[in-house]
Every structure is written in C-alpha cells, then in structure tokens.
C-alpha cells in the first residue's frame, strides 16, 4: 500500500448560496482544489452527497460533475453514507491512490439544501424510514433522546451542554468560510426556540449550501505539486445500527469508537498524540459523546471538560477549530471533506488566526445518521 498525501484543497463559502446550483458549487470547489494543487487533469474522482435527488432532483453526479469541472472522460463515482458521505468520498479516494490504481484523485462533497422547503423530511431519510421516521421522529428528535438519557445518567446540565455551540461559534469567528461567524451568549442558546426537547435551535447544526474538494496523490509524488503536502496517515471506518433504538446503550455511539480505534491502530498512535479534532457536532450532545468515544475524555466527563475550556485553545485538545458543523455550517455531503480541509490548513500552517500551535497530528470524524456510519481520518504534518 502506498502512502497518500493531500496536495490541494478548495471550498465554497458555506451559507445560503442562492445564485449557485449544485453543479456550480461543486465545480467551484473542485476547480479551486485543482488550481491549488496545480493539476490540470485528474485520474479519477469521488463526489459525496447525501441526497441530491431529494434536494435538487438531480442524480448521476459522476457525469454532471465531470462535465462541469472540466474533466469529461475521467472515471467518477457518487458515494453516499448520509452525513458521512463526504468522509466516505475521501476514504474512497485514499483507497484508490493507496492501491496504486490511480495517482491524482479528487475527493469532493456537496449539498444544496436551501432549494427545498421541507428539509426535515430529507434528513430523516438517514434514519430508519419505516420504523423511525414513519412514527414521527425527526433527526433532532433522535439526538434529543440520546441527550435526555445522557443528561440523566451523567448529570450533564443544560447550561454545560450549551457550552458546546458557544465554543464552536467562538472558533468560527476566525473562519472566513463559516456560515455563522459570530459569538453566542449562554442566553442565546437557552432562549432559542425548542426543536426537540431538550435540544434547542442553537444546539442544532444549520441548513447549509456548500461544496468542498481535496486532491490526493501518492506521498512520493507530492513534492512535484506543493511545498506543503499533508499526509493522510490513517483511515478508520465503521457501521452501526440504522435505528437509534437498536443501540444497546443510548448514551454511546459505538460506531465512533470502532472507526476511531481502527484509525489509531493503522496510524500506530493514541489520543494523546492528537492536537486537534474536527468532530461531527450535528447536535451539541454529539460532540460530547464523540469526544469520549475517540478517547479524549472518560465516558460521562466530556461535557464538563468542554465547559471548563478543555476543548479549546490552551485546553486538552482543540475540538472543532473551524467552528464545527454548528457555526461553519453543515452542507451534509460536503462536511466530511471540509473537515479534512480544516485539518490540512492546520497541519500546513495555513489556518491563520485559528491556527493550533505546533500540531503534528490532527483527526477528523464524520458521522452518518444517529451512529449508523462513521469515517475517521488521522492527518500528519510533514
């Protein structure tokens, strides 16, 4: 297996992109990434998108995106794993480069979410359609049921839970691509409208349009393209039950531990080696449980630790320096790729005012559904 590096990245601003359709956003990100790497022709590409069909009535993204990013002829594939679609695209591209099948592979992700009125019903397709969504549960509702059990079991308070979005919004102020780069007060969170009790609007990642793309190549060719390549040191992936009710322990996301452990094993590293992590904070409670499953905090302690400043600069580990899904935005299929871009910026010293100092290793964690799938990457500064 060959070592794999990132040699270029590109993304759109995240937000309400009324003047761009799904093809425009993807093409913008892909062309920026190819320009960044200085490549005119790629060998292959993957596009992650959760539900282009329901959001935009457009499928067949391999052909569409090859056409509009100026790469007609190259092989392409649309990969889907709900909210982990973007991470799955990066993983697929990694495998293709590592295997020796292709040298220059683009991994991108995209979601056009603002064109539909009822996005809730689209997001619910990541749950069990016949046995969860049919009975009225929404996506925030699933995480609300996780939060309720966790809060009761571990004594996590509503105020402590609010510190997750407050921290992530604080980080996002320094991210020019973030959808909502402003700070939140405790009152902003606690007074925001109830979505699914106990989760309020400010616990929930937003509806976002956006696209992101990275270019991968064999590590031994990376210096042909850039002085600042970043190595993808390890990948870890796993699946879990489709329905939340089939999780043995409702306070755990076993899929994250499985994927994380596989990545640590492949890298030969442990949690204490990691300087920052981009986690899938689709809902505030998710960041807390994920930080525990990845081994950064003991079970039941991450909420209090984050509230005490252990998840930000100067703390134990910087969680979501980009602002996370909550503040940077969550264009579902693009999210996993954008996490990898943030890790690339951090490890190549290009993160500007949000730079994590002296970072050697960074991690990304992208999750589908209520713990139905998970992709973890460990990246390394060279």
């Amino acid at each position, binding site marked *: 297996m060959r070592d794999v590096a990132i040699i270029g990245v590109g993304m759109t601003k995240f937000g309400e992109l009324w003047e761009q359709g799904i093809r425009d956003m993807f093409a913008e990100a892909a062309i920026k990434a190819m320009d960044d790497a200085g490549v005119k022709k790629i060998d292959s590409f993957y596009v992650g998108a959760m539900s282009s069909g329901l959001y935009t009535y457009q499928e067949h993204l391999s052909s569409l995106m090859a056409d509009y990013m100026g790469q007609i002829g190259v092989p392409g594939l649309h990969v889907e794993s709900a909210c982990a679609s973007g991470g799955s695209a990066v993983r697929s591209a990694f495998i293709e480069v590592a295997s020796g099948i292709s040298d220059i592979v683009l991994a991108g992700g995209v979601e056009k979410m603002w064109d539909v009125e009822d996005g809730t019903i689209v997001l619910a397709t990541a749950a069990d359609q016949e046995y969860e969504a049919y009975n009225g*549960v929404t996506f925030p509702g699933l995480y609300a049921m996780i939060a309720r059990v966790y809060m009761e079991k571990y004594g996590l308070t509503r105020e402590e839970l609010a510190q997750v979005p407050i921290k992530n919004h604080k980080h996002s102020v320094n991210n020019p691509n973030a959808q909502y780069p402003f700070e939140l007060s405790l009152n902003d969170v606690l007074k925001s409208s*109830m979505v699914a009790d106990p989760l309020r609007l400010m616990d929930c990642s937003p509806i976002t349009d956006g696209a992101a793309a990275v270019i991968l190549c064999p590590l031994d060719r990376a210096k042909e393209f850039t002085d600042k390549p970043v190595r993808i040191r390890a990948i870890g992936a796993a699946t879990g039950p489709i329905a939340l009710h089939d999780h043995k322990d409702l306070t755990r996301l076993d899929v994250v531990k499985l994927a994380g452990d596989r990545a640590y094993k492949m890298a030969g590293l442990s949690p204490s080696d990691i300087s920052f992590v981009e986690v899938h904070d689709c809902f505030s409670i998710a960041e807390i449980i994920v930080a525990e499953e990845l081994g950064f905090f003991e079970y039941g302690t991450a909420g209090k630790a984050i509230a005490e400043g252990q998840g930000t600069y100067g703390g134990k580990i910087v969680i979501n320096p980009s602002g996370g899904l909550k503040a940077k935005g969550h264009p579902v299929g693009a999210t996993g790729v954008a996490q990898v871009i943030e890790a690339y910026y951090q490890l190549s010293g290009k993160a500007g005012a949000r730079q994590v100092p002296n970072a050697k290793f960074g991690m990304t964690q992208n999750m589908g559904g209520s713990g139905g799938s998970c992709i973890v990457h460990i990246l390394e500064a060279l």
Partner: protein
Amino acid sequence: MADSARYHRERFHRYALEAQKFDSGFISLPNRYIDPHSGSRTYEKINLKGTGTILSYTIIYIASDQFAHTTPYPVAIIETDEGARITAMVTDCDINDVKIGARVELVFRKILEEGESGIINYGYKAVLI
C-alpha cells in the same frame, strides 16, 4: 410517497405487532433474515403483547410537513416486555406526564393521511398506562 405496496407489506408489524424471536433471544419487530448480534437465522414469529417501558423520549416541536399539524408531540424509544425495541409516538396524554421509566401500551392508531383522497396510514402509537 403514495405507494400502497410499501404500506401493505408492513401490515403484520404495524397492525398486529408481529415480531421475530430468534433462538438467541433477540427480538426484532422489523423482518430480518439474520440476528445482527448472534448471526442466528432461526426464529419463531410472535405477536408482542404491546406493553413496555419508555427508555427515552423527546417532545418534537419542529416536525416535517407531514406531522407539523400535530406539534408538539412526544416520541419515545420503548422496550416491550418481551425485549423488543421500537420507536413510537406517545399519544392521548399530557406531554408533561411522559417520563423515562413510564409504562406504556401500544395501540392501533392513524399515523398519517395523504390528502383528502390518498391513503390513510395506520400503525402503532403508545399510550401511558
């Protein structure tokens, strides 16, 4: 999603709480060919009694358009007395009475109707007992 076959094939689960009891002890309400935990393929069909306990719940305030007319409404994860896990709305109650550990019974109810001349969808909801 006016797809009558999709609803028809679920009739045994939704109308009669038909489940599978694998020889490993695992009970599944949806049909499965294999127990995902033990790998067992041997099971018998049972009908759940319908009584169970709430493991967690939420009150939905923002719903999809299909259910928006009925907000706020409680949804719960329930473990039936046989050990099957299901997700269901909790109905005919004061939302403040829904608690972890509350005892419930599954009852036959209308879930949705697809407009004035579309299919009326039925299934199970939970009531507090």
